[in-house]
């Protein structure tokens, strides 16, 4: 039987269409994924992300271990609660997973990694950790929800009450705070303001119900995908995997080459690739009728590539995509859609931020 999060019954009660997501029974939508999408852009929505894997790293070598394990540099983190996005790479620079790391002290960090890659991630983390004095503790009993949207702050305040909300009031993006049972972080996967909240599994349903009772829209995987794609955020397994590097995946910004004396897994391969040149992940925009889809062929100046993620953008009203193409790509490309070639614009892979188009 598929895995179920502590919110399974709540989803069914809310009328969710449940689907298998890498071995988890998860809600695809609760009726209309476009309405859910719009709720997050205009008001607030909540996602069950309890299937994600939470891993605590502790010990005197915790900082040294993570500086070696991750392509981004946890030494940048000096304020307790601060978060950082990073790839976890193999020796060839291929992306094993992308994750968020939270800093508490030099001896205590928390990682949130993808559920689809859980086994591979855990095996990798444990094998690398064997040379360091660290303990790796998975936290499967914790639940997690993502509350996102321009009204997320006001809704969370309603649910927590003024006193409990005070420590997170006005918290900057990519920060976190433990408030009683709730680990509250200003992170997300939608391009809106909002929170990811980790709670003990037996308390997550109460939080979920409280949020729905103050008018927060429950949202499924369908809306999660269109929101993250509009925001230009990668989906592991689709936009990148172990066969490509962060440089080919619009994640170059998350690789800390400086300081030059920090050794991290994949560094040599990335430096070689940087010198030799590489494909890149770009955004595509098509204002004609139709929808760009994963797997469609993209013809550009100097070669061919492929759409890694494509969808109809509910916020913009036309189709957008991410595509991996040769670096020689110009301002336009041709996409093969249902046996026809359609001309599309090539843009930076970021389309919507905080409810508004970022396209020129």
């Amino acid at each position, binding site marked *: 039987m598929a895995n179920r999060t502590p919110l399974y019954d709540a989803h069914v009660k809310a009328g969710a269409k449940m689907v298998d997501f890498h071995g988890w029974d998860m809600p695809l939508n609760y009726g*209309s994924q*476009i309405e859910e999408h719009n709720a997050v852009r205009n008001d607030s929505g909540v996602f069950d992300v309890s299937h994600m894997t939470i891993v605590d790293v502790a010990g005197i070598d915790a900082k040294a271990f993570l500086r070696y394990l991750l392509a981004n540099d946890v030494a940048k983190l000096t304020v307790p609660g601060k978060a950082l996005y990073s790839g976890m790479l193999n020796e060839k620079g291929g992306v094993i997973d992308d994750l968020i790391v939270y800093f508490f002290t030099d001896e205590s960090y928390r990682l949130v990694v993808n559920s689809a890659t859980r086994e591979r991630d855990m095996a990798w983390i444990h094998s690398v950790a064997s040379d360091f004095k660290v303990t790796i503790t998975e936290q499967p009993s914790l639940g997690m929800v993502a509350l996102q949207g321009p009204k997320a702050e006001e809704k969370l305040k309603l649910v927590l009450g003024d006193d409990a909300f005070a420590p997170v009031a006005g918290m900057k993006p990519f920060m976190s705070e433990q408030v009683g049972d709730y680990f509250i972080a200003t992170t997300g996967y939608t391009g809106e303001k909002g929170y990811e909240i980790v709670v003990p599994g037996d308390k997550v349903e109460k939080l979920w119900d409280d949020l729905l009772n103050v008018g927060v829209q429950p949202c499924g995987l*369908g809306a999660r995908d269109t929101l993250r794609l509009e925001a230009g955020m990668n989906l592991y397994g689709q936009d990148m995997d172990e066969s490509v590097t962060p440089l080919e995946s619009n994640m170059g910004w998350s690789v800390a080459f400086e300081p030059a004396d920090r050794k991290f897994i994949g560094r040599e391969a990335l430096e070689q690739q940087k010198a030799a040149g590489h494909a890149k992940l770009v955004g595509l925009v098509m204002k004609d*009728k*139709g929808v760009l889809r994963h797997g469609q062929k993209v013809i550009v100046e100097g070669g061919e590539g492929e759409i890694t993620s494509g969808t109809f953008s*509910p916020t913009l009203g036309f189709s957008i995509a991410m595509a991996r193409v040769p670096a020689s790509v110009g301002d336009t490309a041709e996409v093969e859609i249902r046996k026809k070639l359609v001309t599309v614009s090539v843009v930076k892979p970021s389309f919507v931020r905080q409810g508004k188009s970022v396209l020129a």
Partner: protein
Amino acid sequence: MSTIPKELKYASTHEWVRNEGDGIFTVGITEHAQDLLGDMVFVELPEVGANVAAGDDVAVCESVKAASDIYAPIAGEIVEVNEDLEDAPETVNNDPFGDGWLFKIKAEDPSEVESLLDAEGYQAVIDEE
């Protein structure tokens, strides 16, 4: 459990057909089909006046999830298309058997409709999926 009106005829490819009299038949997609596709974002309809054969792909329903070809359930001439869907494709989701109809076809041979599935036969098709 999706609705399957008894008075309609069905194709195994999830189109429904309603007899409007005078050899005219309205065609749409079933509630089950729209549910599989999810939120509709574009509907591409045939040209009025086009002559089509049974089984021709004549329209496309494109949802957030996928593009799906719509086949002519019977042969004939397209006499009208639902232009309201241009601005409101979600009508196919909200009212698949009513305002969400796709096109009307003047049958070459109205008796061809008799060979389509009835509600029970269509239910069996869904059950096998």
